[in-house]
């Protein structure tokens, strides 16, 4: 049976600056993307119905996708096909803006769309409807931001409490920050909107990403043994942890997408992005800061 081993990196070949440069550059690019988004669209990330208000209808219909728009008097923002292997009927998620009336839209769907089977009792056209009013949406937005800020602050304070030294604690905070910012930027580029589900995923990232940082700091600061030896041991465990999580989340993202369970799919994608960023941030950014703290400036061999 082939065992996978965590590859050993020869850190002595790189200076602290070289190591830190890559994750910092990626972080900078991510921040530029968010800033650009803010300039172009008024928000740093694209917001979903949960945060902007509007109506989402899940409809099951034989009407071709191109003609679905015509069933509604209101403007359709997007129509997405859901592929669900357990159902043969074509299913779409249709999104409308916030100034629409959900009840009226559901009625129009029932009146104007073609049922997917002959017996209307067996296949309702409107499978689900979610209407969020703008007032609720802006409240949810504030709460989500508040939640993220409080979670992040709590995590930072705890990091300082655990290690009680400035550089290692700051290293944890910076890499956790980067772990959240990088997926946000990639979400923009991939067209994933910020929803309650993705906020949940970002919060999970706070927890997950701190795990491997704490492990690394703990091994290097609180254990006997040389710097590189401790790093090697921390990496053996930490990389395994992160890879396990990545594989679980990647599998979840793929299956949930196939089944059309949006919430789980977006949580999966965001975590895969964030955990991948975490690998880089922990073992390049956090590690270089720790090495600078422990060994001072290192000249590459």
């Amino acid at each position, binding site marked *: 049976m082939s065992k996978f081993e965590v590859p050993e990196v020869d850190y002595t070949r790189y200076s602290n600056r070289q190591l830190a440069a890559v994750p910092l550059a990626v972080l900078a690019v991510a921040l530029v993307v968010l800033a650009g988004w803010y300039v172009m669209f008024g928000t740093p990330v694209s917001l979903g119905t949960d945060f902007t208000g509007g109506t989402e209808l899940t409809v099951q219909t034989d009407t071709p996708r191109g003609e679905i728009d015509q069933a509604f008097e209101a403007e359709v923002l997007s129509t997405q096909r859901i592929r669900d292997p357990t159902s043969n009927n074509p299913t779409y998620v249709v999104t409308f803006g916030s100034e629409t009336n959900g009840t009226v839209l559901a009625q129009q769907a029932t009146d104007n769309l073609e049922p997917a089977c002959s017996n209307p009792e067996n296949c309702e056209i409107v499978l689900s409807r979610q209407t969020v009013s703008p007032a609720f949406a802006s409240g949810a937005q504030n709460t989500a931001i508040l939640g993220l800020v409080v*979670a992040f602050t709590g995590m930072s304070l705890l990091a300082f409490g655990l290690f009680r030294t400035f550089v290692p604690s700051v290293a944890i905070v910076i890499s956790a920050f980067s772990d959240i910012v990088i997926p946000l930027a990639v979400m923009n580029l991939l067209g994933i909107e910020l929803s309650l589900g993705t906020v949940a995923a970002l*919060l*999970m990232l706070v927890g997950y990403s701190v795990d491997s940082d704490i492990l690394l700091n703990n091994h290097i600061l609180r254990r006997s043994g040389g710097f590189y030896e401790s790093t090697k041991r921390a990496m053996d465990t930490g990389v*395994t*942890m992160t890879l396990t999580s990545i594989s679980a989340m990647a599998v979840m993202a793929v299956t949930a997408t196939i089944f059309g369970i949006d919430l789980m799919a977006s949580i999966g994608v965001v975590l895969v992005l964030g955990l991948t960023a975490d690998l880089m941030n922990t073992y390049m950014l956090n590690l270089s800061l720790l090495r600078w703290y422990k060994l001072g400036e290192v000249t590459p061999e």
Partner: protein
Amino acid sequence: MNVRENWRVILLAIMLVSSGVVLFVPGVVGGSGDSGQISNLQYGIQLDGGTRLRAPVVGMTAEDVSFAGQDQGQARQAMADNLSVPTRDVYFQVNRETGVGTVEVFNDSVSETEFATVLNQVGFRTSDDGQFGEGDIRDGVTADTRQQIVDTLDQKLAESGLTAGSARVATTPQGQNYIVVEAPNQGAEELERLVAQRGSVELVARYPGDNGTMQETTLVTREGIDSIGSPEPGDSSPYQVPVVLNQEGAERFTRVLNENEFTTTGAGSTACGGAEKNDRGYCLLTVVDGEVASSHSLAPSFADIIRANEFSDDPRFVMGAQSRGEAETIAVGLRAGSLRAPLDTEGRQVYTLEPALADRFKVNSLITGIIAVLAVSGVVYLRYGEPRVAVPMVLTALAEVVLLLAFVSAVRLPLDLSHIAGLIAVIGTGVDDLIIIADEVMAEGDVNSARVFQSRFRKAFWVIGAAAATTIIAMAPLAVLSLGDLRGFAIVTILGVLIGVLVTRPAYGDILRWLSVEK
């Protein structure tokens, strides 16, 4: 096997067995253990189908109003007239001892300035004897009014057959209150109709008064009714709700009709019919939320009975309606009472899901979960290559899920997609922690004594404890804030981390010790 050394494993085993009982033995958890349910888990709307509606209450409140020297009935009428709103949109609550209370206005057409002005006009003063200004009026209604609405909605849900439905008050972190109504397995239309109307129902007598104007007198309100029948097709209007008046109601009915010539010249008036107010003749109007639902005349034979004062012997009567839906609204309104204030139709949030789609979600998210666990197992096995490390690891992670599900089922928390996301997060951090334990224990060569094992395990636990503390701190604000779906997610994650750190992960340590020390 040494009980003292392995108490954690034994504890885990006991907890798993009780979880099994909680999850699978029918009827253990409060509920009925009904029809074909495999487990005792309760599902929320996202996994079982149904409708959830959240809406703020329409209204404004003036606090600390002094009622000294005011006749409440007259003041209420004066407020309503000056604001040109129906009297039911003005509500007083007074503390009897202090004579200070609140005034609420439930109508969107009134501005805060108008409200303050009219309070001053009617002669109200603040509790420190000042005039009201715009700043004394706040948006929103009192907690008492919200509670009345919730109680009434609960009754309405029960009366209209949506028995599993429920209503409650929720508050956003911004301090806005709203009412949440949930009805499992129901479509949106029925629920929206139920909350769209306040459901105040009265029977009003309308007749020509002095100098040619029409007069109206309330004939029957909910208080005057003893029992309410089911809606049925009617004679004088398309549908009707039969009611039986109580003694007081019947007396009032007789007195008002006799005093106003309904039983003499007004009997069988031809001006009545349809859903309009009559501008001549003598009609009985069924009024729902201020709108006329139907109008009919007093039949001559019925008029004779009332004139002879025999109505009280058999005080039966009908309320008319133009459609079956309207008749049901009347029946439910009479039984459950009316909402003190209306719910905002603009600011509402609706989520509805067909049970068929919900069933698909249920099965598919289960499959997704199982596949994710398989992926984790695969990676763990590839990494360690030793089944005796990897198999207990995966089993321990699954045990966490079982314990968590049992807890969720025991506290009767309806399971939703967000909770499933929380479960996934728990499996993820759980396996992470188990990897830390395994690596730490097996590092630096073989474990040859229990003491070495203990010291290594303790070291591993420092990291795990620290990581768990951060996760709990990160999730804690969400568990408290009312952010809809995220709350359930945070609660499940925190609980899972606690169960993991306190029960399952230490037990895994014991299992690993047993497997490695005694070799």
